[in-house]
């Protein structure tokens, strides 16, 4: 089990730190009430809540700079969050005890510019998918945000900086950021790309990622070197029509063939979106809680008979595959839909679900919304699959080789079964790689189940690592675990950069395994 208090230097003088920040930013920017401290330390991890010293609400980059300088002066660790909807990965909670949360979501939530000609928006960390979507709709709905299927009120920047992803052509959210503004751990402000030019107007800073000098942007993806206070995000034109397609497959073992059939569709660029490949529990779990939990008390996984009944109730199969075309009209895309349909018909028992039909199948409608850049909250239903509020996400991946995907699927099922966990998984598949989102939903109120969930995660990590496979994003309980599996020189380099940019180690010590 994680030790949240390990490795964090104790804050030297939090009292004087809060006084200093209150003096400079006003009392409304500081909250040290018991309620706030408790809530900001809550999460869904097996390792439990974290002890938070207080919460700050800056309103600008200058405010953030004041906070960081004060944090250095009084040696108080600060933990920036954006919208705080990082569910399954830590919510708002710091990795370790004894930190001050800097909540950028309240007063730094401005959409500073939307450029419809060039397709970008300049935003602050508190801007959520829903806010950006609403603004784009207000402007005429010509552009669309790359939505996730996660909380609509999650932060666009927070998701991108944690290497989150969507489903459309702009799925690589960090890859669509440009011109970051960052308050470093030493209190300095830098801008990246052409935004770093000292003189002149914005020029190309919103449209060119690679200009003279090192590409520093990457330093701020999954790191604790600075606090990103604004960035440009590129947006996709909304097509006149979006036509999704869906297939339902009956057997767990169909996964290998599914992956092999998706690969050529993505390698050639025939299908512009990624593919959602959800197993039965991932899809049906958004609609109803585990039907067997009350009987098993979570000691064993759901039975095959109950899985079959779930599939029957919701019109689902062992796997659901969804993708979409963007085009001028539904008619113009009909031949492509037919092509894909014939392609997947190679798998015995494959059932096609049309765009119109899928609108009325809630787990499939989630794919339509997210591939159409419409944020939705339907997938949050997964969190009540088991009671007690425990939830972590294990996020390895597979190459787009059916053989490997199937082997990993068997490994995953075995590991979940051994811990009495229900195997809930979605692959988000591209041309060469699929990110495999393994969901663990468990009862934190049951110490035995909580322990088994923790062990399951660690065992998955160990067994995947033996195959040379790591993770993408990680729950805060396991940042140290994942960093410890990287080569020592990698970690040492990360620490050296940390010392250079944040010499007193005041930004999020412990996050991503960097102190």
């Amino acid at each position: 089990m994680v030790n949240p208090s390990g490795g964090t230097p104790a804050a030297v003088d939090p009292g004087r730190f809060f006084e200093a920040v209150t003096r400079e930013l006003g009392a409304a920017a500081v909250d040290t009430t018991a309620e706030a401290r408790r809530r900001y330390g809550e999460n869904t991890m097996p390792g439990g809540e974290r002890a938070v010293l207080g919460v700050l609400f800056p309103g600008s980059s200058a405010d953030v700079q004041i906070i960081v300088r004060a944090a250095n002066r009084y040696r108080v660790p600060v933990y920036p969050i954006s919208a705080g909807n990082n569910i399954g990965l830590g919510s708002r909670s710091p990795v370790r005890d004894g930190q001050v949360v800097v909540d950028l979501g309240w007063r730094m939530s401005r959409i500073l510019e939307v450029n419809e000609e060039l397709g970008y928006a300049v935003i602050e960390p508190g801007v959520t998918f829903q806010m950006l979507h609403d603004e784009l709709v207000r402007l005429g709905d010509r552009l669309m945000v790359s939505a996730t299927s996660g909380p609509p009120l999650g932060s666009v920047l927070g998701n991108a900086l944690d290497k989150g992803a969507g489903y459309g052509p702009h799925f690589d959210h960090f890859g669509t950021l440009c011109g970051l503004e960052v308050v470093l751990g030493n209190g300095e402000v830098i801008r990246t790309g052409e935004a770093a030019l000292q003189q002149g107007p914005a020029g190309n800073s919103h449209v060119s990622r690679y200009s003279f000098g090192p590409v520093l942007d990457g330093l701020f993806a999954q790191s604790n070197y600075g606090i990103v206070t604004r960035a440009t995000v590129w947006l996709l034109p909304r097509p006149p029509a979006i036509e999704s397609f869906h297939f339902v497959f009956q057997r767990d073992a169909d996964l290998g063939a599914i992956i092999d059939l998706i690969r050529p569709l993505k390698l050639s660029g025939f299908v512009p979106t990624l593919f959602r490949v959800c197993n039965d529990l991932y899809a049906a779990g958004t609609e109803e809680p585990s039907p067997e939990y009350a009987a098993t008390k979570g000691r064993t996984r759901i039975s095959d008979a109950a899985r079959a009944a779930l599939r029957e109730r919701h019109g689902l199969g062992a796997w659901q595959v969804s993708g979409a075309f963007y085009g001028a009209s539904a008619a113009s895309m009909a031949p492509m839909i037919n092509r894909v349909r014939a392609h997947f018909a190679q798998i015995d028992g494959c059932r096609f679900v049309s765009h119109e039909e899928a609108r009325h199948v809630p787990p499939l409608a989630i794919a339509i919304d997210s591939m159409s850049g419409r944020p939705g909250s339907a997938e949050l239903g997964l969190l009540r699959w088991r009671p007690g509020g425990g939830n972590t996400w294990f996020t390895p991946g597979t190459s787009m080789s059916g053989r490997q995907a199937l082997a990993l699927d068997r490994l995953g099922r075995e590991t979940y079964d051994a811990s009495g966990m229900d195997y809930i998984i979605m692959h988000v598949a591209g041309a060469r790689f699929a990110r495999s989102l393994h969901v663990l939903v468990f009862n934190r109120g049951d110490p035995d189940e909580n322990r088994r969930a923790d062990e399951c995660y660690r065992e998955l990590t160990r067994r995947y690592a033996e195959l040379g496979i790591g993770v993408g994003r990680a729950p805060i309980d396991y940042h140290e675990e994942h960093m410890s599996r990287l080569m020592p020189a990698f970690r040492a380099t990360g620490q050296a950069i940390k010392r250079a940019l944040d010499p007193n180690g005041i930004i999020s010590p412990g996050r991503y395994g960097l102190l």
Partner: protein
Amino acid sequence: MDTAAAGAVTEAAAIEARGIAASCNHFGFCTSTCPTYALTHEENESPRGRIALIGAMLESGAAPDPRTVAHIDSCLSCLACTSVCAMKVDYMHLIDHARSHVERHYRRPLADRLLRRFVAQTISRPGLLRAALTLARPARAFRRLLPGRLGPMLELLPRRSPGGADIAPGIHPAVAQRRQRVALLAGCAQRTLAPQINTATVSLLTRLGCEVVIPEGAGCCGSLELHMGRGRGARRSALRNIQAWLAAAQSGLDAILINASGCGTTVKDYHHLFEHDPSWAGEARRISSLALDVSEFLARIGLGATVSRPYRVAYHDACSLRNGQRVTRQPRELLRAAGYEVVDVPEGHFCCGSAGTYNLLNPGKARLLGERKGRHVDSSGAEVLAVGNIGCMSQLSNYTRMPIVHTVELLDWATGGARPPSLAGLPPPAGAGLRASPGEGASAAAGGVGIW
């Protein structure tokens, strides 16, 4: 219901409420959608914080803490939290129960008690409300001199007497052949504040082949008292309606229609209001199963032929319709089918601050929310604002200059009815197709960014 039975109902409700409070897992998705949390960023001004406070209040044997009461009072009951709650916490019934508990166990300051009694007893009685408005209108000029919440309350008064007469109870026969027979809840405040809504509703429904019954005995749905914690009064109002509609149903009823969505949410929930009352539980269930928002019913039967006037219409989701009843698609589809160009109001999940009697009892926060919504309405670039709830219409009239109509007024106009009074003098449509409709794809006219 006798005293013992009433006690049993209260105890059953308390058990239910404790269960609801315990079902919160503190994920906190609700906080971002909660208008009062967005304004204050104070934990106890969020649904999550209120759930914890209510849980503690119910567990405690003591009188409610004034701070807890203030946070409960400050809740809009907009139910935006329920639209993102992963645990599907039944916040609607929890907050109603909390209000009822406060009403029974907490003694408010005298001025507060008087104000609440005045609001509860006046608004739900059309005659009294009409008299109060007549008396209060001259006082509007002196509103800044009035103490406490009286001044802001006068701000909310309609500037003019509404045009048109209140529609008469009775049977309004279908034009041409009768296809359906429906009951319409004429309501209470709406009859006084905007009688043209009921007139347009009856005009539209009868033209579409519906016989419309407005039973003499039906009136306030009870929501006003329910949301003020006065459960008994609410049940009395609800019972009157149930009895009136059951009598009407003896000649057959295809639906009970409500055109004020705040009332619709309550009528659809009558089954819950009476679930522990064996005398009326079955009848209440029957009434709830027949209840529909007028837009749900119209989407079911279709509009028939329309005259297209392609005004750009911003559609505002009343919280009671969006979150309480989950009716969002039908009003938009109907308006589009009637030839209007429909755009959404940004930040649609946020309450406008009306929330029943909220803008009367909590004018400060209501004003902030009204101003915020008004800015969004104005930014939509629409020519007309359509709303499905009288409360939002009254509130928003203070914060936007855009003409405001009920959705049925526009539908009635498009199908041969009268021009809505608030659109008198509206210039012809500026031009269609300038804005997109938020389906999956963009509208053809919205192009210019990509090529497909």
